[in-house]
């Protein structure tokens, strides 16, 4: 088992990073750190996905010298998927940061526990 984990070292590190990002998302009370944890999770997923396209001894998928055999280039499909994913990740980071700014304007704090408490108190009144 350790040998298999060492051979796919990129995928192992991607899984560990996913777990670390998830724990940051759960445990941190500051909203900005939670958003950074979510970004770490998504980047770890992209690392896992793109490491499936690599093949030893082959080059990047840009055709040079007119060589078009399939045995000379790596798999281009995971790179395309991850490209879409990176742009979607920046979109939702922008929306979450806008929500954070609005929350700060309303409650003057960034601690998620305090915000929940204040919101519940306002609901009771």
């Amino acid at each position, binding site marked *: 088992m350790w040998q298999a984990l060492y051979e796919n070292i990129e995928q192992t590190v991607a899984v560990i990073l996913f777990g670390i990002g998830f724990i940051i998302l759960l445990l941190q009370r500051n909203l900005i750190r939670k958003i*950074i944890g979510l970004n*770490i999770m998504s980047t770890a997923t992209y690392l896992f996905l793109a490491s499936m396209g690599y093949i030893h001894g082959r080059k990047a998928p840009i055709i040079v010298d007119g060589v078009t055999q399939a045995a000379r280039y790596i798999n281009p499909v995971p790179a395309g998927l991850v490209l879409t994913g990176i742009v979607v990740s920046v979109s939702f980071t922008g929306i979450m940061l806008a929500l954070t700014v609005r929350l700060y304007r309303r409650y003057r704090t960034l601690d998620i526990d305090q915000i929940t408490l204040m919101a519940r108190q306002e609901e009771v009144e």
Partner: protein
Amino acid sequence: MIFVNLALLGMLIVCALAVSFTKNLLTSLIVYMAYSLIMTVIWMLLESPDLAITEAAVGAGITSVLFFVTLKKIHALKGDRDHEQAQK
């Protein structure tokens, strides 16, 4: 070559852990920018130059700029008033 790979992946984990263990918000952001930069180099080692250039422009560029601007709006940079309120 394998040593460079291992060193970069190890630095990724160190950066991801350092984001949560620093007290200052600004330090977390700069560590996140470094994380994005190391990710760019790893994309290059995995023979995907498209991903490398996109991650460099978007991750270490646009997302970090948006984070900095948010920090300014919530008055968490030193020298602003209400500096202590946002640090909690």
